[in-house]
């Protein structure tokens, strides 16, 4: 698999995948997309790198703790967002929306607490996928 072609393609494709995944994450509130799909997309990019360069490239084994906390932190973020609804005066998972006038571009952007929730999901998916990959790839 680690042919030159594959490596070169990976070099080009994986950054695009990452950026696309961010796009998916941010548009997720109103349009198709969201944390889960974005997380999978990011993971797909990471898988490509993994397949092309092996796990030494990012030194994933040594960073397993990082991914563990990525996963736990994402979970905590989503949970806290849900919990916030409870304290703001609604119910659990109650979403809040704020419209903020952006400086310089003079547009009103919509920020929803669901977005933070999505970021949490994104982190969880990334963490899980990478952990899974290292776990499965360990044997070779």
């Amino acid at each position: 698999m680690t042919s030159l072609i594959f490596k070169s393609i990976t070099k080009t494709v994986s950054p695009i995948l990452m950026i696309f995944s961010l796009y998916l994450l941010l548009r997720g509130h109103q349009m198709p997309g969201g944390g889960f799909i974005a997380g999978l997309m990011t993971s797909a990019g990471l898988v490509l790198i993994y397949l092309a360069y092996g796990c030494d490239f990012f030194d994933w084994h040594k960073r397993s703790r990082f991914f563990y906390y990525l996963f736990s932190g994402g979970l905590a973020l989503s949970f806290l967002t849900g919990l916030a609804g409870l304290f703001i005066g609604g119910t659990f998972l109650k979403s809040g929306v704020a419209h903020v006038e952006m400086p310089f571009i003079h547009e009103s952007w919509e920020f929803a607490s669901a977005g933070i929730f999505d970021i949490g999901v994104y982190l969880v998916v990334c963490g899980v996928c990478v952990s899974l990959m290292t776990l499965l790839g360990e044997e070779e």
Partner: protein
Amino acid sequence: MTHLLVLPILIPLGTAIVLLLLRANPMGRRIVIGISGLSILVADIVLLTSIYQKGIHSYQVGGWSAPFGIVMVGDLLSGIMLVLASVISLSALSYSFGYLKKEAQQALFHPLFFFMWAGTNGAFLTGDIFNLFVMFEVMLMSIYALLVMLGEKKQIEAGFKLISMGLFTSALFLAAAGGIYAFAGTLNMADLALKIKPHVDHPLVSAIAMMFIGVFGLKAAMMPFHFWLPDVHSAAPTPISAMLSGILIKVGVYAIIRVFCLIFVDLQGYFQGFILTMACITMFVGALGAVAQTDIKRLLAYSSVSQIGYILMGVGFFTVGGMSAALFYIISHGVIKSSLFLAAGILKKMRGSTEMSDHGDMINTSPAFTTIFFIGVISLGGIPPSGGFFMKFQLIKAGLDGAFYIPVIVAFMVSLMTLFYLFRSWQKICLSGPPQGNPLARPSVKLLIPVGILAMLCLVLGLAASPVSGLTQAAAEQLFSPELYIRAVMGAM
């Protein structure tokens, strides 16, 4: 609007996340587990009393009103199951500190345990078919991980069996949910009850009901689907075995009760014969399997299959008395069986095996263990003054009152077999001469205390049968007037 209803889900969920983050801090984890474990128990009890006093509670998650949003409903049945779950979970948790020696194991075990707890509580509280599916999966996913956590060969194999079974059930569940959504256009159980009522003669409705029996029967290990249970329950780490037999198979029974007392109320008579037949076969086959076992954990697992048959029998009577008896049975069996499993775990810790022939002479090694095990045995055997006597007494009486003579006769035959295999195992483990090999070490007090507390609870259930059966009676009456439930959910529209 009270948030009490979501606390039994939120506290364990939050705890699990905190425990994940506290991986490197064992002391902190212990404190968190202690505090939140107790607070879940308190929340459950407060919720139960509140339901008892004020009637059915409902809660719209995210503020979307029923039938569009996710709705949580707490009636007496859910309340009882929640309290039972927290009692058993707390004992299993405290037991796990003595059972899992390595810190790394505990760091993995406890978050997963709380996830499982959250899933279980969620399944009891949800008022929506699809959410039930999600909560089931949260619970099952944690069980998968917990089951294979220690990495023993037996556990991996059992895990493979369980996950294959689980995936298949999920697909079936989804298909059933899809079917019912296509038919009624809603997944909210209260709404479904209203929408299905006029079309109860439609063949699709019975087909879907049958699918639900299959799905929940698989989870509850009802007869043709019992094959996975003995492997899984005997292979799991002991605190998880206790949870599995004590509370998690009852989630399946709970779902059957919920579905048939709410959505398919008018199909009760239609399915009664089927459920009763299956219940009889389940208890008989389970007991037959248990008689043949030489391994104490497998014996207890088969016994769980058989006891599920008893519970289903009580449900299958579809009378208030039968339902009340079944609920009482769920409670006492949960307490008894988890205490027995935890006791079996002590044996495993002592000699590294659960084969009965590897043990013996416990009466001289540890009279405390012998007594605790004995209490479990007489309770499950249905001998007074334990709670087990009253669970059988009420069940049989309900059967006789409803003139279901054949199930009652089967129940009696099976209860004789139950007594036989339980006492035989007790005698082999506690009374027979000392086993070959190393002299027995005394079981650690850390493990004995939670088991002892559960054993005491078995006796308390017998002496305090009156308030408990009053509660189950009230719960059963509530179940047989589904309009209360529907009003509590839909009234908030």
